[in-house]
């Protein structure tokens, strides 16, 4: 844990330094830029609330990727699962007329169902035809992208709009907002606790983790690998779908083009930096969200364009991941050297 924390903080600092260097080369003032960046994302109630709100899709897709990678399946289909989940929630919100206390849970479940359905396709292709989910989920992402684009352009198109989007969903399906605090954070925290519990405390989670570590050992120990594989795919798909549903219910309350943005890929990156740890995913998700939230203010105050954050994120990931491996080698080497010295004496 301590080693992780140290390598994470060092990595972030080095990445910020590299970012500062890039800014210096282009003639920007890095101190002013970082000040603006974090002023608009961390300091104050409104910035903090916005950062929390924006972190929800990042953390949920990150959790989806973390759980999948740690349990074995290389589910890279979060972008598609998120879109299908968002579409399910939107369609439910357009046609169902229920009171708020019923409609909100129903829409949440619908979005999870949508995501699980889409990851289920990949899981079935693997189970029946032994097709590698690594490539099928990627292809399904593109297919989901075009499918949802079609859905919002024709069957669910808002006739009063000029660009592809659906009408707004039933107001009963909007997630409540208290002041600046959006309740999508509560749903995310709940989902995090459930997943954390299942993954770390229940037998099912133990089986997933063991399978991810060493599937041969798991199989010899009597774990049903195939069944667990499908479960993990469905659960991680549902998580990504939930992210999409919450984006619709918390934000624009409709499905518009480009809704998925880069959330899911950022989520995958977050899982990768967190080394598939759940708490790490939560923390890095908040950090990435702070960067993205602050980028708007940064663009406003300084001349640095918002897209710079995307570069900074990728640099952070590379530095932390490489640093972690390097740090491990360094520590192992010193341990080995110590042992050698002990033997020599």
């Amino acid at each position, binding site marked *: 844990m301590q080693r992780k924390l140290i390598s994470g903080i060092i990595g972030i600092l080095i990445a910020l330094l590299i970012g500062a260097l890039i800014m210096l080369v*282009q003639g920007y003032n890095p101190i002013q830029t970082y000040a603006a960046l974090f002023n608009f994302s961390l300091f104050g109630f409104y910035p903090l609330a916005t950062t929390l709100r924006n972190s929800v899709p990042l953390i949920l897709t990150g959790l989806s990727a973390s759980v999948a990678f740690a349990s074995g399946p290389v589910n890279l289909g979060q972008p598609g699962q998120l879109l299908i989940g968002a579409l399910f929630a939107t369609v439910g919100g357009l046609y169902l007329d229920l009171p708020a206390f019923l409609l909100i849970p129903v829409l949440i479940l619908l979005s999870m169902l949508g995501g699980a359905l889409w990851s289920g396709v990949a899981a079935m*292709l693997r189970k029946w*035809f*032994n*097709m*590698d989910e690594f*490539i*099928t989920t*990627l*292809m*399904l*992402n*593109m*297919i989901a992208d*075009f*499918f949802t*684009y*079609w859905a919002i*352009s*024709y069957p669910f198109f808002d006739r009063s709009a000029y660009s592809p989007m659906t009408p707004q969903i039933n107001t009963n399906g909007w997630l409540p907002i208290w002041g600046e605090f959006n309740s999508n954070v509560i749903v995310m925290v709940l989902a995090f606790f459930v997943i954390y519990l299942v993954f770390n405390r229940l037998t099912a989670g133990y089986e997933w983790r063991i399978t991810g570590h060493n599937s041969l050992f798991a199989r010899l120990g009597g774990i049903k690998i195939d069944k667990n594989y499908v479960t993990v795919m469905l659960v991680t798909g549902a998580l990504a779908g939930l992210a999409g549903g919450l984006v619709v219910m918390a934000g624009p309350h409709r499905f518009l083009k480009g809704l998925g943005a*880069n959330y899911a*890929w*950022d989520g*995958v*990156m977050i899982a*990768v930096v967190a080394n598939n740890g759940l708490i790490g995913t939560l923390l890095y998700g908040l950090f990435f969200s702070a960067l993205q939230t602050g980028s708007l203010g940064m663009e406003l105050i300084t001349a640095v*364009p918002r*897209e*710079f*954050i*995307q*570069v900074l*994120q*990728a*640099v952070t*990931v*590379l530095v932390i*991941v*490489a640093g972690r*491996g*390097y740090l491990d*080698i360094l520590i192992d080497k010193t341990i080995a050297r110590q042992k050698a010295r002990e033997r020599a004496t």
Partner: protein
Amino acid sequence: MNIITGLINGMISGATPILLAALGGTFTFYAGVFNIAMEGMMLTGAFFAVLGSYYFDSWLMGIVCAIIGSLMMALIFILFAVTLKTDEFVTGIALNLFALGATTYMMRQIFNVKGAFSNPGIVPIPRIHIPLLAKIPILGNILSGQNLIIYITVLVVILSAFIIFKTRFGLRLRAAGYNAPSLDSSGVSSAKIRIWSLIICGVLCGLAGAFLSLGYVTLFSENMSAGRGWISLAAVILVNGNPWGIALISLLFGFTDGLGLLLQQYMPSQFTSMVPYVATLIALYFYSIQARKRKA
């Protein structure tokens, strides 16, 4: 007749970027590098091609810049995956996202536009007219008048097959993937072979990117590689890296690309755009069925 030549020409130009990237991928495949960064390399190549072509007023400089840009990505991959021994999968994912962010950022910084940059100042790569071949009745329109990169691609296919299977470097390349320790113990550094395979991959992905932004169309748009790098990865896996097989598979994907355009008269364009990706899934299906038969 025109429809058929149009379809064939569409197939060829749709196949070219996938084929080039997949050939790059096959070098790393044989060297035992799990390289999924083709998408990012191609995208970077496409951006630098437009940059070079626009500022130097020359398509040749466009190609050179594309290769340099893509090589930079390859060097980052080498630095992390080979030198620092970072996980290859992680490096590839981060690199793809880095390429997406960096090209979008640079497009905004350098050209001051969002979304797409097109300008009459971008010089496209010319089509080559071969005097004698053009006179052949039906094949003339296919054999002659194609983009320069397409002719280069044909050469690259032949060269790749030759290098991988007939030269000493190719033997070492395959050994690096097949059994790296025994290659190392025979006095050849497998890390060095991997580095070379990644450099070759960088060059070929740069060419693929240059074809995308200076041949296929004459503009750069955000994320314009649109999953072609992933399809090329699928192509490499499907035929176990054989360059001739890759050429065939890429043509098949190119055909679905052209077919999608043709089908646009009958159904919404969103569905026709799905065709190449669905085709990849179908191809994977047949591959896995065959693999199962081989095992049994």
